């Protein structure tokens, strides 16, 4: 090991979170390596290529912001689904509010229990996918998460799991600084769905590592909570075996700062990956999707579909990359990112990237940014639809390509109804 350049800002990141409970040797060693990564990577700054559009200051700050708790008089999203509910309060697992951690074809335990076991399959995943995902783009908050997380759930799907596992992140304390780390293994031929909703903390650093074996399928659907001033950075690291499937969709409405990173490594042939999202922001809102899909196998398909509706000075950021490694022939990569600006104060910043080292591939990317189509608006109004309603129809239509990435029609409709709610609340 060479000389370690100690970055004091990185040291401060480590110092702001308490030490997690002592775990088994393998887990402690993973945490130790993660701490070293944090120090080696240094804190995120505006000069970093992937932090140019999003200021990480609030994520770097010593304390979480003080954020009012949003009390909602409505059914939580995904509540109607038949599910295994796992509740976290200010980032702490609540057995009282959660269902029993059992299910058919499912091994599920808390992160701390898993990390305390002397022998555990999670040792092949915990901190491993995150560490791999640091190259070529550093993701210091993910390393911080591995180093400090005490909370989270470890799930192994051994067959088709019919009930989705639903994480619900509640907030009780206005200034909670939450670190959650989930570790997921989908075995060969298994099928698992994860639902997530809620803000979870005033500041929420969440990491999810997902290892999908050959022939496994993983579905992920989340809504990030409507608390206005909350900040969040999330990281998903997925490794896909052959003939496996990965799907992730994120709905974000409100939130002062959201940075969602998804790092997907397609390692086996004939696999598919889809990562998509819809966001709606009004005012003091910055939403950043930073996606990195690596094709390291042949005959695989990946899709990135992101739509952002922005008003009153809100900012949307998209940084999406498709890397096709040598030998990843017959890759089919698709990427679209679009911003719908409802006024002239809002911004959409996009950086699509393709890097291709195989010669028989089809990759397409598109990025657009514009206002609501006046011609279409007039057409709708000329048939009697009031302006506000017509504009909301156009907003929903704009978002629909992303919503269509959701496999379950019922869940997609639940998401649509939340979008309608937002559009109506924000179109006065």
């Amino acid at each position, binding site marked *: 090991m060479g000389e370690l350049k100690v970055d004091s800002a990185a040291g401060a990141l480590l110092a702001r979170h308490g030490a997690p409970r002592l775990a088994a040797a393998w887990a402690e060693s993973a945490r130790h390596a993660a701490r070293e990564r944090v120090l080696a990577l240094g804190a995120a700054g505006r000069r970093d290529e992937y932090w140019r559009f999003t200021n990480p200051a609030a994520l770097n700050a010593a304390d979480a912001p003080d954020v009012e708790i949003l009390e909602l008089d409505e059914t939580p999203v995904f509540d109607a689904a038949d599910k295994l509910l796992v509740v976290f309060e200010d980032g702490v697992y609540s057995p009282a509010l959660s269902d029993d951690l059992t299910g058919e074809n499912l091994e599920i335990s808390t992160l701390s229990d898993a990390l305390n076991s002397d022998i555990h399959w999670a040792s092949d995943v915990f901190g491993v996918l995150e560490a791999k995902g640091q190259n070529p783009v550093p993701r210091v908050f993910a390393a911080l998460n591995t180093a400090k997380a005490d909370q989270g759930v470890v799930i192994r799907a051994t067959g088709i799991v019919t009930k989705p596992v639903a994480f619900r992140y509640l907030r009780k304390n206005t200034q909670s600084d939450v670190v959650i780390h989930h570790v997921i293994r989908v075995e060969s031929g298994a099928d698992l769905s994860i639902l997530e909703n809620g803000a979870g903390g005033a500041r929420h650093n969440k990491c999810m590592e997902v290892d999908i074996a050959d022939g496994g399928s993983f579905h992920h659907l989340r809504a990030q909570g409507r608390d206005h001033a909350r900040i969040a950075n999330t990281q998903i690291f997925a490794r896909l075996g052959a003939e496996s499937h990965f799907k992730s969709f994120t709905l974000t409405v409100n939130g002062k700062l959201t940075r969602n990173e998804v790092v997907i490594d397609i390692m086996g042939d004939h696999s598919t990956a889809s990562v998509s999202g819809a966001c709606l922001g009004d005012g003091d809102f910055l939403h950043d999707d930073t996606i990195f899909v690596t094709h390291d196998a042949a005959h695989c398909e990946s899709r990135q579909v992101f739509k952002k509706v922005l008003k009153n000075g809100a900012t949307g950021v998209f940084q999406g990359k498709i890397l096709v490694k040598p030998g990843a022939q017959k890759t089919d990569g698709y990427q679209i990112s679009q911003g719908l600006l409802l006024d002239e104060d809002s911004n959409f910043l996009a950086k699509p990237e393709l890097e291709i080292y195989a010669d028989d591939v089809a990759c397409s990317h598109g990025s657009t940014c514009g206002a609501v*189509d*006046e*011609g*279409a608006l*007039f*057409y*709708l*109004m*000329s*048939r*009697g*639809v*009031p*302006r506000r*309603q*017509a504009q909301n*129809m*156009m907003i*929903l*239509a*704009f*978002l*629909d*390509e992303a919503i269509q990435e959701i496999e379950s029609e019922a869940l997609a409709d639940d998401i649509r109804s939340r979008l309608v709610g937002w559009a109506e609340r924000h179109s006065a």
Partner: protein
Amino acid sequence: MEEKMFEIKNLKASLEDEDKQILKGMDLKINPGEVHAIMGPNGSGKSTMSYVAAGKGGYVVDEGEVLLDGANLLDMEPDERAAAGLFLAFQYPVEIPGVGNMTFLRTAVNAQRKMRGEEELNAAEFLKLVRAKAKSLKIDADMLKRPVNVGFSGGEKKRNEILQMAMLEPKMCILDETDSGLDVDAMKLVSEGVNALRDGKRSFLVITHYQRLLDHIKPDVVHIMADGKIIKTGGPELALEVEHNGYADLMTEVA
């Protein structure tokens, strides 16, 4: 009861972006149940008149009124004009990806009913109504499910306009070059759709370049428009005259 139901009075309108007046004092009266046709050379202001009446952005009304049952449409938002009973069949119907045709129709019908203080149609009632009307226009279920006008052929788009007209049951219909881009069969189908809506009370203003459409939709009155004004008004024979001699004679006659 108000005798003249649709009336354009001394309408002068300009393009917002350039200081150019397109309509230069247009007058027109249409009684209940009448079908009027407007013909005129390119650039005479026919389409501008229809857009100004319907409330499209980009135009400035310099002077005049457009009255429907005595109320000035120019004071209203486009959706209020629709609820008041005006319908414009577009020359180029707009494609709206992501909005289902059926959803659009139902939203429009119910928005108008709501604005008029009538009860909204429930899903079943609406479906029954739209299916019956679509059938007569040879619009299949697939077309209703697709996004509004997306991937529709020229004929399908125009049939879709007539379907909307049939569903919304307006008092006053303006058809802006509904015959453009239609083959003979499609024109016949669209005309039959329009004729089915002639009930002695509903009025129509048909904008066209060709006499042929007027063989199918027989007008009571024909107007010739040039340089932003009506320059001549007559019976159906006026359309035939234009077909044979063009506009040049008429325009010199007036000048």
